[in-house]
């Protein structure tokens, strides 16, 4: 048994790199998937709408931990050996796609109907209408909740600890097993997440206030 020291804080900070890496993968992959889901949900094709709705319902209606387990234990069944790192990445990308898809669907639908009709009247096709008229406006509405959702993504990566991926939470468990000083260990772990998440929360709150003020004008 040793006491909690500076090298443990260093270990946690190093593990934070993995949390950040995993969060970035989840966020970038989830943004691409989310855009596809949102466009499918708002499209005129009934099949696409139904598929996207089912996808969202499954991923929003089941625990992220189960999604993680299903990828982790399911991939070998399908013939792929995946590491905890890959399994966590896949599960988080799918999960983030569903949530961002739903947030962005709301933002796309919040663009006034007249704008869609005007774009159609100008003879713009679906691609041009979305790219030039709808999405730029939806983007402004979507920014605050999207930044806010990044906090959920970062917090979600903590579940990768359960399948043995060494990010911040797992690092905390490892140190706790060695030092048995849970109070300080999990306080430092919590503080590290806070340092990552709080600036994003703060930013999200600020841009939300600003856009609310703009709309009230």
């Amino acid at each position, binding site marked *: 048994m040793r006491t909690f020291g500076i090298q443990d804080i260093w270990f946690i900070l190093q593990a934070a790199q993995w949390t950040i890496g995993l969060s970035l993968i989840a966020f970038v992959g989830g943004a691409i998937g989310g855009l596809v889901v949102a466009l499918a949900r708002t499209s005129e094709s009934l099949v696409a709408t139904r598929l996207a709705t089912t996808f969202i*319902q*499954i991923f*929003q*209606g*089941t*625990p*992220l*931990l*189960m*999604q993680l*387990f*299903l990828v982790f*234990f*399911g991939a070998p*069944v*399908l*013939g792929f050996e995946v590491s905890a790192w890959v399994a966590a990445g896949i599960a988080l990308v799918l999960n983030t796609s569903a949530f961002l898809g739903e947030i962005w669907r709301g933002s796309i639908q919040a663009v006034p109907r007249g704008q869609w009709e005007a774009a159609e009247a100008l003879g713009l096709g679906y691609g041009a209408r979305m790219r030039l008229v709808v999405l730029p406006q939806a983007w402004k509405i979507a920014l605050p909740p999207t930044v806010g959702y990044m*906090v959920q993504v*970062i*917090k*979600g990566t*903590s*579940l990768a*600890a*359960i399948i043995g991926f060494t990010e911040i*939470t797992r690092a*905390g*468990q490892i140190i*706790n097993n060695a030092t048995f*000083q*849970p*109070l300080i*260990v*999990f*306080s430092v*772990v*919590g503080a590290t*997440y*806070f340092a990552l*998440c*709080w600036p994003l*929360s703060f930013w999200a709150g600020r841009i939300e206030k600003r856009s609310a003020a703009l709309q009230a004008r």
Partner: protein
Amino acid sequence: MNYTFQFSDVLAAWPLLLKGTWITVQLSLVATVLGLVVAIFCAWAKTSGPKPLRWLVQVYIELIRNTPFLVQLFFFFFALPAIGLRWSPYTAALTAMVVNLGAYATEIIRAGIESIPKGQIEAGLALSLKPHQVFRLIILKPALRAIFPALSSQFILLMLSSAVVSVISADDLTSVAANLQSQTFRSFEIYIVVTLIYLTLALLFSGLFRLIQRRALSYPDRR
């Protein structure tokens, strides 16, 4: 793919799964009720409490919202016993859930309170209602109507994130799955079944909440 699915072992354990499901539902319901009590108090403190209390509540909310539930759970289960607070996995899980929901619900309730026009509060005060009466009769009830959808999705989120309490073996649905896994080695099948149970619960509760919203909380209200 040369894998044969075998659901028989998993399905044979249905009494255990049922019990785990019940504990998950029970934990979520109890935590929501207690968390709402915390949240109503905090929302009051944040909107009309004394300055130091307001500040304290703000710190609580920011801390909970910006750290993962798993870490909060570890904190309650491992850290607090180290300073003499000993409790069972179930109690630790419940406490973590109450504290977590309390923070999120405070913000929801506060938004609900702020949705009440100032004029109504002033009218209540002009009618010489005491501040606590104004809060209870003029703010709380109509605000509940406004925040019900947000609260119900928060309940479902809590129920789903409660899967995490299995790491301290709190006997919930996911814990049952973990135990079954070590007995039968049918991980994939177990997690498919358990995921479907969670999905059913989520759909059931969201349907139920929508029904309540339509029946009891929708306008026009002529009762």
